[in-house]
């Protein structure tokens, strides 16, 4: 089964997770069109 990126769209949630797991946040600003 292929691995897919589990993207968050909530920065506050990302901060909480990053603090818990001691990892940096990768933030991708994108244009969906």
């Amino acid at each position, binding site marked *: 089964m292929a691995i897919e990126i589990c993207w968050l769209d909530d*920065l506050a949630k990302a901060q909480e997770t990053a603090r818990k797991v001691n990892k940096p946040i990768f933030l*991708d*600003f994108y244009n969906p069109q």
Partner: protein
Amino acid sequence: MGAVTYPDERVAKFLSLNFVPVQIQSANTALMQRFAVSWTPTLLVLDADLREHYRAVGFFAPDDLIATLLAAKGKWALGTDQFVEARALFEEVISSHPDKDAAAEALFFLGVAKYKMSHDPKPLRETYDELKARFPQSTWTKQADHYRLISK
């Protein structure tokens, strides 16, 4: 990025293991302004306090993104005073991606990490010598030029 790079299984695995991945649409003008983003794709590496440690604009092929973000993670570790991890990450970029642009940047910051760990300036001089030998055309070699004044 969404059509080529992110569907690549190596990228998906790398991002999942090393980062907390977040995507924000360009329609979110509040966050675009908050991070001074004016073009997409813009890629940022932030710490848990949202301090920026790395920024890039434009497309990255899968291999280039992995090498670049490994070096960016090293800069995150350096910027959060995790010097042992920073050193290991920069060494991994240099050994695993020696032909990528990120290797020269990693070599530059490996010298910085070693200096921060030891307060001995010799690693900075060694960095300059190695940059000059391996990446003579790199901007990182030019930016390390003043280290040649440090005695061996």
